[in-house]
């Protein structure tokens, strides 16, 4: 079976045939063994050794943790990839101009109002979490179309806070 693994914005094709895998143009003997009672799996790729914590998110989504790096990977087979390609680029993306809370916390101050134009890096909302005030900033220039929270409000991770529209230049 041929898989396409998306990792850190890159797509890496991996062909799996029994205990042999072909990746980056080379064939290896490979063995992945779960460590009982732990989220760990031990990979031998040729004689290279690597232990990774792995968690399945279903539908080909995998979260890997290795040496403190946490990585979300997606594994699809050839057929699924083909269907996706037909659906066109960008299909499935959500959230366009919404600034979401990157963590649970408390809204301390709003730094913008609807209608206001902001530059890249401008502060939007001050959020308190773990005893620190954190200023959330705009990734690019835009116009505030909606403010979705109020000071004093508790917010969840991922909750939309502010909506920005791109500047029409």
């Amino acid at each position, binding site marked *: *079976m041929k*898989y396409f*693994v998306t*990792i*850190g914005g*890159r797509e*890496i094709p*991996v062909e*799996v045939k029994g205990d042999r*895998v072909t*990746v*980056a143009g080379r064939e*290896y003997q*490979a063995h*992945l063994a779960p460590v009982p009672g*732990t*989220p*760990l*799996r031990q*990979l031998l*790729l040729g004689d*290279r050794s*690597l*232990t*990774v*914590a*792995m968690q*399945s998110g279903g539908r*080909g989504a*995998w979260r*890997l*943790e*290795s*040496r*403190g*790096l*946490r*990585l979300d*990977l997606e*594994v699809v087979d050839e057929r699924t990839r083909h269907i996706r390609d037909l659906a066109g680029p960008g299909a499935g993306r959500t959230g366009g101009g919404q600034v979401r809370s*990157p*963590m*649970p*916390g408390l809204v301390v101050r709003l730094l913008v109002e609807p209608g206001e134009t902001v530059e890249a890096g401008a502060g939007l909302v001050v959020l*308190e*979490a*773990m*005893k*620190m*005030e*954190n200023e959330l900033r705009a990734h690019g220039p835009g116009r505030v179309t909606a403010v979705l929270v109020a000071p004093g409000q508790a917010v969840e*991770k991922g909750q939309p806070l502010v909506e920005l529209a791109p500047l029409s230049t």
Partner: protein
Amino acid sequence: MPFRVLVANRGEIALRIIRACHEEGLEAIAVYSDADRLSPQVRAADHAVPIGPSPPSESYLRIDRLLEAARRTGASAVHPGYGFLAERAAFAQAVEDAGLVFVGPPARAIRAMGDKTEARRRMQAAGVPIVPGLTVPVTDPDAARRAAAELGFPVLVKAAAGGGGRGMRVVQAPEELAGALETAASEAGKAFGDPAVYLEKYIERPRHVEIQILADRERTVHLGERECSIQRRHQKLVEEAPSVALTPELRQRMGQAAVAAARAVDYRSAGTCEFLLAPDGSFYFLEMNTRIQVEHPVTELVYGVDLVREQLRIAQGLPMRVPATPLAPRGWALECRITSEDPAHGFLPSTGRIEYLRVPAGPGVRWDGGFEVGDEVGLHYDSLLGKVVVWGATREEAVRRMRRALEELVISGVATNQAFHLRLLADDAFLRGEFASQFLDRRPDLLAAQLSDDQMTALAVAAALAEDEARAIRKPVVGDEIAATRWRLAGLWDGLRG
């Protein structure tokens, strides 16, 4: 009657203190909030007492509940750890008033050092060099602007109470001053219950060097320096002892200044004088932390002294075990703070349950942790999960050992800053010791995740193999079987009807 110590804290420092109690042959009493019912401090202590709901304001900051817990369990002493009530003179006073021993300095010493403005005046009087600045709090923006102009920009706006970076702002130009005053005062008010801030000259590219003090009834000694320049937003991330910037002669001078500072307030127990060390070798007293510090282990490793155990001895009225001959550091120690902060997302706090933990071990490695498998990492408390501390004969050996230790550490269930530390320890400037307090501000590259092609390939193979296996073994599970049975049952009904 046995000497029993109530540990009025949580996390790694609570466990550290309980360990010290047990090694001194003393019983330890833990307290816990609702969120901490299963925490390491409860598991390690001989006794454990609930003190209220999870928010600190309803538990770890409640002096009344802590004293009630001490009374109920027959405690002789209270160790405050760091953070929470550790530097509140009112707490030390309340403990003393309840007839218990406060494992730390006397309330009056905390009070004297707690008011930063007052402390600066006293230090100046005691001949300890201080950073030029205002010796009274400032609120009026105009007054602040005039004072800043006199000192010369950049200036630092700083909370009069507290420390640890909260209520602190660097101001580069006059027009930023009013905003900085407001934010700093707001943070200070929230964090310390006191919005007072003051102004001082901002020393550029300083090193952050602190001197450890230990004082019993007879003697006040210093145990050399710790270098704490690797900080992010004024939060220390990496500490070491000794500092590459200190000669034995400079160590001696800074040590004597720290001892003078401690003596000026009749200090007892462990404490730390923070200094800014300018590139030209001049140094300035910043403040005294009247508590055990997070980073105390690096001093312990190079001086062979157990600071928390000495605190416990001093609290019992015993002399400290530190030899009277001047001590010199032996070898090199490094500490990396492992926090539940995700460098991939701007160091924002990460939460979750610890699913798996493998702590680093083997020669020269010390793990001071505050959590175990099964613990929930939430948002109520500080993000410090634990500290990896190593000793090596030289700085280079210590760095290599730290890298090895960090590669061994596995924490699953919550994102941490572990990978950031590994990047830092591979950085040339860090390895040469060429850094100052703003090192990380100038090196955003160290904050971003890095992955070699080899690593990427291996991880991709692991994911592909795992997916391949998951597909192969995806068989009807029990839930499906019930559904299928019900479906057959429903079909049967249909058959009966049809």
